């Protein structure tokens, strides 16, 4: 049988299909991640009417505009804080924050820090494309050293964050890293995370050919996806602290679930516990 040309897609009811095609560029991974999240959500058995997506600003921030849920496209960097208000005012809601590396870890870094500290009951999904894509490809907090962006014309010099390490060190309940190609595993992670409580984190490496790939020899989306296929390795013994992203064709790219409540205490970095105890007694 040849293909059949049609106009609707089985996933359409989960999306605001009337808004398709979406604004993301050819070769961008955000669309795949969004659909993957929505399928996991649909299969989770959670009542969709009680599910909320909150985004910040950025290409990834536009996710809120495409999911067929109650969805909020907030201000740059404040998605987690906004979501905190949503969740506290109506604890029955399942609240997912969907945003980019810049939104969550540059301008929004403080809210991440404190939401983890409070163990706020949120699932936070970060599409990490190593740059501020929406504004045209500037360096961000995950931009690999030596890579070229419009604000690092001579190569980035700052040490980037290793988001898995950061999340683990701060003490999230669940933390995973996948790529926009590892969609089956990503979906499983979404499903797992949706069943847990407390602060859960999922990072998805995703091609941004326009803002990052082309300037850094990663080429078009398809080439970056090939890179992920070639380098991606699921290493369950690796500690989050070592889960470096080397973005080099000679180094494996560690993927997997780095923090998992089922594995607590198996040598993985524990949460950053602070002062405790009734003081002075």
């Amino acid at each position: 049988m040849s293909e059949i040309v049609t106009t609707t897609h089985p996933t359409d009811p989960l999306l605001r299909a009337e808004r398709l095609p979406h604004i993301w560029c050819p070769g961008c991974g955000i669309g795949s991640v969004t659909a993957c999240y929505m399928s996991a959500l649909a299969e989770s058995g959670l009542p969709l009417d009680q599910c909320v997506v909150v985004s910040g600003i950025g290409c990834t921030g536009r996710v809120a505009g495409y999911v067929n849920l109650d969805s909020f496209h907030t201000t740059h960097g404040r998605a987690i804080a906004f979501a905190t208000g949503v969740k506290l005012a109506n604890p029955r809601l399942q609240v997912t924050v969907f945003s980019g590396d810049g939104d969550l870890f540059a301008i929004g870094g403080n809210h991440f820090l404190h939401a983890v500290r409070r163990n706020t009951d949120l699932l936070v999904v970060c599409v990490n494309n190593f740059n501020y894509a929406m504004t045209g490809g500037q360096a961000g907090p995950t931009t690999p050293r030596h890579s070229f962006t419009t604000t690092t014309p001579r190569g980035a010099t700052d040490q980037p964050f290793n988001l898995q390490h950061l999340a683990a060190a701060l003490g999230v309940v669940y933390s995973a890293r996948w790529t926009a190609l590892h969609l089956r595993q990503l979906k499983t992670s979404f499903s797992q995370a949706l069943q847990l409580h407390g602060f859960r984190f999922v990072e998805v490496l995703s091609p941004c050919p326009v803002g990052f790939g082309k300037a850094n020899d990663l080429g078009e989306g398809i080439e970056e996806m090939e890179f992920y296929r070639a380098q991606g390795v699921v290493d369950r013994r690796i500690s989050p602290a070592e889960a470096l992203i080397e973005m080099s064709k000679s180094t494996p790219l560690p993927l997997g679930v780095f923090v998992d409540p089922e594995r607590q205490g198996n040598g993985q970095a524990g949460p950053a516990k602070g002062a405790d105890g009734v003081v002075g007694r």
Partner: protein
Amino acid sequence: MTRQEVRLAGFGGQGIILAGYLLGKAAALYGGQHAVLTQVYGPEARGSACNADVMLSDSPIDFPEVRHPSIMAVMSQEAAESFLPSLVGDGTLLFDSDLVQLDWPGRRFGVPATSIADQLGRRIVANMVMLGFLSATTGLVPPEALEEAIRTTVRAHTIELNLRAFEAGYTRGTAA
């Protein structure tokens, strides 16, 4: 005061903005004219039709927006379809005949810019072919000014190729 509104259109990655920039720069710095380049920004502009608008005048330009171009060069079907309505009735239409099929009652000139660029070895210089073609067919900006703009703008090792593409387009244009 004579004023010309020019619109170049195509899809992202064809170098439409660069072509517009060179047209404006040639006019403003080497052609003794006044020129303003405007363009559309934003994510909604990505991956779909994009355009660069150039206004040329022999006196200072106030309101800079091109609303009713009298000259339009289109390099993709989608761009042609979305922008053609803005071309004034007696306007001149240039198009990449490799990529665009359309009717236009007024003056129209096609050039297989993409295949000419392909022959020169890099499809990416189709925009230069179109620029040369435009210079020749419209006489808007003299070719010397445009060549100088190319020389002072593109990266050193690509000057040669770009100039060759420009000339190829110009030659086609003089014959059109």
